[in-house]
């Protein structure tokens, strides 16, 4: 598969602050890559370089076969950005129609994209009167008019309800099947794990891990043990191989490398312990371990 995005050695500085310190990133045709990392990791700076809004120093940055600083290249992208407010005066039809005109597409392309994103019937509505979820879909409809070879989606499912999210991913899956590449940032780690072929973890401006969701999960030796037990947290925390202990909804949640030993000791201490599950670490736990950040990962 050919690359629809190739970034090598991207450095971006804001004054003395280095937001990106030599990032490499690729997305192939038909591949969905999720970009994860804590607040301030450099994800938005990376995305803005990819879509040509800002310009860092890179050995190579090639998007859809061209330079993202060139308008012709950017017209081959479909982009959903965060915190976009539509003009008060324009309707859905006029906004997507305008996007089609800017990309040199016929008006029918706008109608198709509107229908694809489930906005048919809303063409004459002012965009600002749409719900947050509908506005997200409208932005994606703008990006879909020209059959983009790369979709760059920054928190695209923010504000979408379950049904809208399902429809959204159905559209993205279809575009992936048709050969488009997708680069997505999301704070919904489970969603990223479910939809991404590959996950790239970025922290403090560097790529700290990369692989399929399963590969990343395997990098963390911890197992997650959940159990209802009367054994005090302080006692469990003192056991060998236990890394962390939390109480959640009446259950004790333990992260430990030697789960068999921990479970055996727990049952010795509390034979009535029940509701016991042992699972591999979640992707979110992997990310916390990789980045040493406990806050929400976005």
């Amino acid at each position: 598969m050919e690359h629809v995005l190739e970034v090598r050695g991207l450095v971006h500085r804001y004054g003395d602050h280095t937001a990106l310190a030599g990032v490499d990133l690729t997305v192939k045709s038909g591949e969905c890559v999720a970009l994860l990392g804590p607040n301030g990791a450099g994800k938005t700076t990376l995305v803005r370089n990819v879509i040509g809004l800002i310009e860092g120093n890179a050995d190579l940055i090639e998007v859809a076969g061209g330079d993202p600083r060139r308008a012709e290249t950017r017209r081959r992208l479909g982009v959903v950005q965060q915190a976009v407010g539509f003009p008060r005066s324009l309707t859905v039809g006029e906004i997507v129609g305008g996007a089609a005109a800017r990309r040199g597409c016929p008006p029918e392309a706008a109608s198709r994209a509107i229908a694809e994103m489930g906005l048919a019937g809303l063409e004459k509505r002012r965009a600002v009167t749409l719900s947050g979820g509908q506005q997200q879909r409208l932005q994606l409809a703008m990006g879909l008019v020209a059959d983009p070879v790369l979709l760059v989606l920054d928190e695209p499912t923010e504000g979408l309800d379950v049904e809208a999210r399902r429809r959204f991913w159905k559209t993205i899956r279809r575009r992936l099947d048709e050969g488009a590449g997708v680069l997505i940032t999301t704070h919904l780690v489970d969603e990223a794990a479910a939809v991404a072929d590959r996950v790239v973890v970025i922290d403090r401006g560097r790529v700290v891990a990369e692989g399929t969701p399963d590969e990343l999960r395997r990098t963390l030796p911890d197992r997650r043990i959940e159990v209802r037990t009367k054994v005090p947290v302080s006692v469990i925390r003192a056991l060998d191989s236990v890394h962390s202990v939390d109480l959640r909804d009446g259950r004790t949640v333990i992260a430990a490398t030697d789960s068999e030993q921990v479970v055996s000791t727990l049952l010795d201490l509390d034979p009535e312990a029940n509701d016991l599950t042992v699972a591999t670490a979640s992707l979110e736990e992997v990310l916390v371990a990789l980045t040493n950040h406990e806050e929400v990962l976005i």
Partner: protein
Amino acid sequence: MSTRVFRTEVRDELLAIVREPTALFFTVLMPVAFFALFATMFGEGGGFGVGSLATYGAFGVLSVVLTNPGVGLADARERGWLRVKRADGTPLGVTLSAKVTAALPYAIVTLAGIALVARFITGPLDLPQVLRVIGVLVLGALPFSLFSLAVGARFSPSAAISVLNAMLIPSVILSGLWFPLEMLPTWLGEIAVYLPPYHLAQLALSQVEGGAVWGHVAYLVGTTIVGAIAAALAYRSAEV
């Protein structure tokens, strides 16, 4: 394709003005109302006619081209809409020139309103002269839109309105566009020759009364160059 993009951008800008007309209502109404007020007060024997169309017209056209493009740009920037346009591959020059172009019909409406009031208050006007004055004012006002865009690239919409009005009102008064320079203290009146609105009004006035043209044209060309540099620098350092 650029023509189609430009048409689309101009259409969007015009729709924004037509569908959200409140601000423009005052932009258009105020110069016409000012003209009506002063023409009523001083019109009889006061020389109000095509000549005053040049000075009040200069104020009217400046109030449109100096405020609308900049405030529109500031609004688009703050909303993130400018980011969408850039990511869409819309050439910056097209976006900016569409904002200026969309202001022109409203500048013409303002001038037509002033001409209409002049017709009723001061009597019949020489139509070719009126058309020449309007043409000169509309073309000559274009450099001022560059300053408007420079402000719009740097400030929030509400701050842009304040800054642009702070540029507009003193400069039109000191250029003698509201009342004759002779009514100002001498030292204030002497400032006028350094102000671009003065040269715009004098250029328009020369279509009625004759007189030197090229000195005013040169001054406006210089204004255009300074405005273009200001707009380019402001936009380069602007956050989108």
